[in-house]
C-alpha cells in the first residue's frame, strides 16, 4: 500500500469541510499557518470561516467587552530561572515577560510579517550591517521613566553582558554596537549580517525594560521586579507557584497591526505553575484556572467537559523528528534508515492515543507553519511515503535476512537503541514506533531517562534513534543547531560539506529571502540523507474555559493574553 503525500493544508481543509475539525480549531490553526489562512480566505470558504479569532480580538475598544476579573493560565513551569530577559534562557519565561515588556517589532503570526511596535519604522543598509530605528514617542515605562533611544541602548548593552537567549537574539558575537542618534533614533551595527534580527525583536526575550529599574534592581531584577511599558504591570513572582500581573490602565501602545491598542480588559493575570499534566487538565475542568497547557494523552481528561474546549496551535519550532545516528551501525546504512521511514504510517500514528488526532504528518525538519507561505511543496519529492512491502523488500535486497521475528546481517541484529525521555514514553509516542518497526523485523531497545540523561546520551552519540525537536520562531537557528556539523547539538553523524555550506550561507545571509534560498536546499539534503523520520508537525494544546474571549497567540505559539477577557 502506498500513500500519496498530501499537503497539510489540504488535509486540514478536508477535515474542516467534512466537519471533523471544528471552526474554532481551524481558526486557531490558521493563525499560525499562512497557507491555511489564505486557503480559508478563498471564495466558498471565507463565509464559513470568517476572521481567524487568534489573530486579534474582534473589538477595537476594550469597553466593548466584559471588563475586570482575574484570569489564571497554568503551565508545568513558567519561570525556571528569572524574568530578567537579559539573563533568562527559558522560553516560557520570555512568554510571560512579553505581557509586561513591549517589544520593538511585532510579528503577525498569521502571515509572519514584521510590523512596527515600539519601533515605528526602520531602515536597513544594503549590506545588512546597519539598522536605523525610529522609535515611538510618548511611551513611558511603568515606573514613569520615558522610553527613548537611550533606554533601548541601555537594554541592548545590558544583554550583551550575559549569555542568555537574548544575547543570541541580538546576534551574539555578530553584534557590534547600539548608538543613540537622537531621542527617537537609534542605530544598531553588526560585524556580520544578522537577517533574523527584526524577527527576534518581537520576542519577549528582547522586550524593552525600564533602564532605571534595570540598573536599580541589580541581581533582584527579574525576581522581585520587572518594569516595562506593556499592557500588564508586574506584581509578584512567587517561585514554583505563580507570576501575578495587573492591568496597566494607562496602556495605549499595542502593536498597530494587532488592531487594538488600549488597556487590556482583565484586571489581573496570573501565570500559575502546575507541574503534573493530569492535574493541570483537572484544574481547568473544575474552574480553578481558565487555561491550561496540556499534552496529547490528557486530551480525554478535558474532552466533553462542560465549559472547556481544546485550542490547538501549530508549534513554532522544528517538526517532531525521530532522528537517527548515521554514524553508528546499523543506522549508518541509508537503506535501513529508508526502510524505517517506509515502515511508519504517520497518518495512522496520529490517530493513536499518544497523539489523540492532533498534529499533521511531518514532511521536513521545519513544519509548514515555519516556512514562507506555508509552502513545503518543493520538498515533497524527498518524502519517503509509507510502504510496508517496499520496506521489507528493501531490507531483503540489502542482505538484512529475517531470522525468526528479527532481521540480521553479518551477525548484527536489527535492534535500535532508542534514547528518549520518560515523558515521551509516558506520552505514548515511542512504543508505537516499535510496533511499526516490528512489521519489518526490527525492534527498539528503549532507554528512557530524564531530560538530562537524554541530552547527555545523545551528545555522547550513544544511540541509534531519538525523538528530537525544538521550539522557536527562527528556522535557521534550528537547522543550524541540529544539522550543522560541529554544532554542540548536531549529534547525528552528518558530515556533508554541501549541507554545511548551505547552512553557513543561510546564517550569514543579509536578508530573510536569501536565508530561505539556502535553507530550503539544506532541508532537501537533510531529507535525502534520510537523517530521520520527520514524524509530525506538532500542535500546542490548550484546554481553555469557554468564558475566555479575545484569545490570541504569538508567533511562537504561546498565548499572548493582551485583549483577552472573561465573560461571566
Amino acid at each position: 500500500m502506498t500513500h500519496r503525500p498530501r499537503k497539510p493544508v489540504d488535509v486540514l481543509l478536508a477535515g474542516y469541510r467534512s466537519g471533523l475539525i471544528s471552526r474554532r480549531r481551524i481558526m486557531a490553526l490558521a493563525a499560525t499557518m499562512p497557507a491555511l489562512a489564505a486557503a480559508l480566505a478563498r471564495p466558498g470558504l471565507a463565509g464559513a470561516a470568517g476572521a481567524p479569532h487568534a489573530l486579534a480580538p474582534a473589538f477595537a475598544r476594550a469597553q466593548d467587552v466584559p471588563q475586570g476579573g482575574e484570569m489564571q493560565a497554568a503551565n508545568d513551569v513558567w519561570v525556571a530561572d528569572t524574568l530578567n530577559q537579559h539573563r533568562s534562557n527559558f522560553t516560557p519565561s520570555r512568554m510571560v515577560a512579553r505581557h509586561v515588556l513591549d517589544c520593538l517589532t511585532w510579528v503577525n503570526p498569521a502571515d509572519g510579517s514584521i510590523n512596527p511596535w515600539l519601533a515605528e519604522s526602520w531602515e536597513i543598509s544594503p549590506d545588512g550591517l546597519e539598522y536605523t530605528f525610529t522609535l515611538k514617542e510618548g511611551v513611558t515605562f511603568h515606573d514613569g521613566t520615558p522610553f527613548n533611544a537611550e533606554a533601548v541602548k541601555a537594554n541592548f548593552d545590558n544583554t550583551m553582558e550575559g549569555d542568555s537567549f537574548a544575547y543570541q537574539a541580538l546576534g551574539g558575537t555578530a553584534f557590534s554596537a547600539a548608538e543613540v542618534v537622537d531621542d527617537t533614533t537609534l542605530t544598531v551595527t553588526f560585524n556580520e549580517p544578522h537577517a533574523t534580527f527584526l524577527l527576534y525583536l518581537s520576542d519577549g526575550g528582547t522586550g524593552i525594560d525600564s533602564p532605571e529599574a534595570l540598573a536599580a534592581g541589580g541581581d533582584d531584577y527579574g525576581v522581585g521586579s520587572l518594569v516595562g511599558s506593556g499592557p500588564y504591570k508586574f506584581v509578584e513572582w512567587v517561585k514554583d507557584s505563580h507570576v501575578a500581573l495587573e492591568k496597566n490602565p494607562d496602556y495605549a501602545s499595542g502593536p498597530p497591526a494587532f488592531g487594538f491598542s488600549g488597556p487590556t480588559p482583565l484586571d489581573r493575570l496570573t501565570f500559575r505553575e502546575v507541574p503534573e499534566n493530569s492535574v493541570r487538565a483537572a484544574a481547568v475542568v473544575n474552574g480553578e484556572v481558565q487555561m491550561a497547557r496540556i499534552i496529547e494523552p490528557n486530551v480525554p481528561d478535558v474532552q466533553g467537559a462542560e465549559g472547556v474546549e481544546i485550542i490547538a496551535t501549530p508549534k513554532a519550532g522544528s517538526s517532531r523528528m525521530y532522528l537517527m545516528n548515521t554514524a553508528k551501525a546499523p543506522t549508518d546504512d541509508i537503506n535501513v534508515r529508508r526502510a524505517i521511514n517506509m515502515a511508519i504510517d504517520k497518518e495512522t500514528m496520529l490517530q493513536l492515543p499518544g497523539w489523540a488526532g492532533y498534529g499533521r504528518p511531518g514532511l521536513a525538519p521545519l513544519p509548514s507553519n515555519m516556512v514562507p507561505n506555508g509552502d513545503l511543496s518543493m520538498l515533497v519529492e524527498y518524502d519517503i511515503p509509507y510502504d510496508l512491502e517496499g520496506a521489507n523488500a528493501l531490507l531483503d535486497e540489502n542482505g538484512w535476512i529475517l531470522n525468526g521475528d528479527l532481521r540480521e546481517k553479518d551477525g548484527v541484529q536489527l535492534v535500535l537503541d532508542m534514547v528518549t525521555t520518560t515523558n515521551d514514553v509516558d506520552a505514548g509516542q515511542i512504543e508505537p514506533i516499535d510496533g511499526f518497526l516490528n512489521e519489518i523485523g526490527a525492534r527498539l531497545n528503549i532507554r528512557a531517562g530524564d531530560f538530562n540523561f537524554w541530552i547527555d546520551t545523545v551528545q555522547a552519540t550513544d544511540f541509534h534513534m531519538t525523538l528530537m525537536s525544538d521550539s522557536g520562531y527562527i528556522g535557521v537557528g534550528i537547522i543550524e543547531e541540529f544539522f550543522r556539523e560541529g554544532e554542540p547539538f548536531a549529534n547525528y553523524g552528518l558530515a556533508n560539506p554541501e549541507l554545511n555550506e548551505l547552512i553557513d550561507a543561510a546564517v550569514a545571509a543579509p536578508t530573510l529571502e536569501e536565508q530561505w534560498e539556502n535553507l530550503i536546499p539544506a532541508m532537501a539534503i537533510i531529507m535525502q540523507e534520510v537523517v530521520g523520520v520527520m514524524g509530525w508537525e506538532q500542535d500546542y494544546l490548550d484546554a481553555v474555559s469557554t468564558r475566555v474571549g479575545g484569545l490570541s497567540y504569538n508567533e511562537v505559539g504561546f498565548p499572548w493574553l493582551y485583549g483577552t477577557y472573561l465573560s461571566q
Partner: protein
Amino acid sequence: MRYALQRLALAVPVMLGVSALTFLMLHLVPGDPVAAMFIGHGGASAEQMNEVRERLGLNDPLPVQYVNYMKNVLQGDLGRSIRTNEPVSEMILRNFPPTLQLTLASMGLAIVLGVSFGIIAAVKRGRIVDNVVMLIALAGVSMPSFWLGLLLISIFAVWLNWFPIIGGGGWRGLVLPAVALGFAAAAIIARMVRSSLLEVLGENYVVTARAKGLAEQRVIMRHALRNAAIPVITIVGLQFGGLLAGAVIVEQVFSRQGIGRMLVSALQSRDFPVAQGGVLFVAVVYVLVNLLVDLLYGAIDPRISVER
C-alpha cells in the same frame, strides 16, 4: 545532655557521608546542566558553553569540586543555584516552611488516625471492626501517595468540588495533600499501635488494673497505651523522615511550594548546588528528629536512662 551532645557529634560523619554520597551520585548520573541550559538557542557555540562550565567550576576534577564545595559548606555557604543564581540557603529557608507545614499536618493526621484506629482494632481484636480497620491499613500501606493524591483530586476536587486542586494558601488547600501524604503513615502507625497494645494487654499489670475495677477506657489509655508507646514513637519518628521524603511527590502532584518540589526541579535540571544543599538539609532534619525521638523515650518511660 551528654548523650545528646554525643549523638550530635555522631551526626557529623553521617553528614559527611550524606554529602559525599549525594555529590558522587549527582555527578555520576548522566546530565550536563550547561547543555540543558543552552539547548534551544540555535547558535550557542561549544566555546560559549565551555566558558560557562569553566565559570561554574564544572570542568574541575570531581575531588577538587567536592573539596571546594565542602570548604564552602563548612563556612555556612551552600553555594548558588546554577539556574537562578539564588543562594541555596535562601532557597531552603523559603521552601522549608511550606514543607514543614505539610509534614506536620500529615504527621498530626497520621497520629490521630493511626492511634485511634490502632486502639479500636486492638480492643475489638478478631471482630469485624478489627478486620475492616486492618484492611484499610493494608490499603493505606500499599497505595502510593502519588496515586492516592490523584484519586483524592478526582473525587474531592473535580467531582465534589470541596477542595481546591492546586495546594497552598489556607487550610483548604492543605487538606488533600496532608491526607495523601499522611494516609500511609497512619496505616503503619495503626498496625503498630494494634500489635503493641495486644502485647501489653495480656501483661499482669493490665490484668491487675482490670481486677481493681478500673474502667476499661482508663486501663487502655493510662496503663496499656503508655507502655505500648515506645515502639510507636520509634515508628512515628521514622515516619517523620518518610513524610519529608514523601513530600517530594505530594508537593509535585498538588503544585505546592516546598523542599520536595525544589529538589525535583534541581535534579531535573542538574542544578548541583541546590540538589546537594537540599539533600543535606533534609538529612540534618532527619538526624535531629531521630535524636528527639531517642530523648523522648526517657521522658515517656523512666526505666530507660542513658546515664546507666
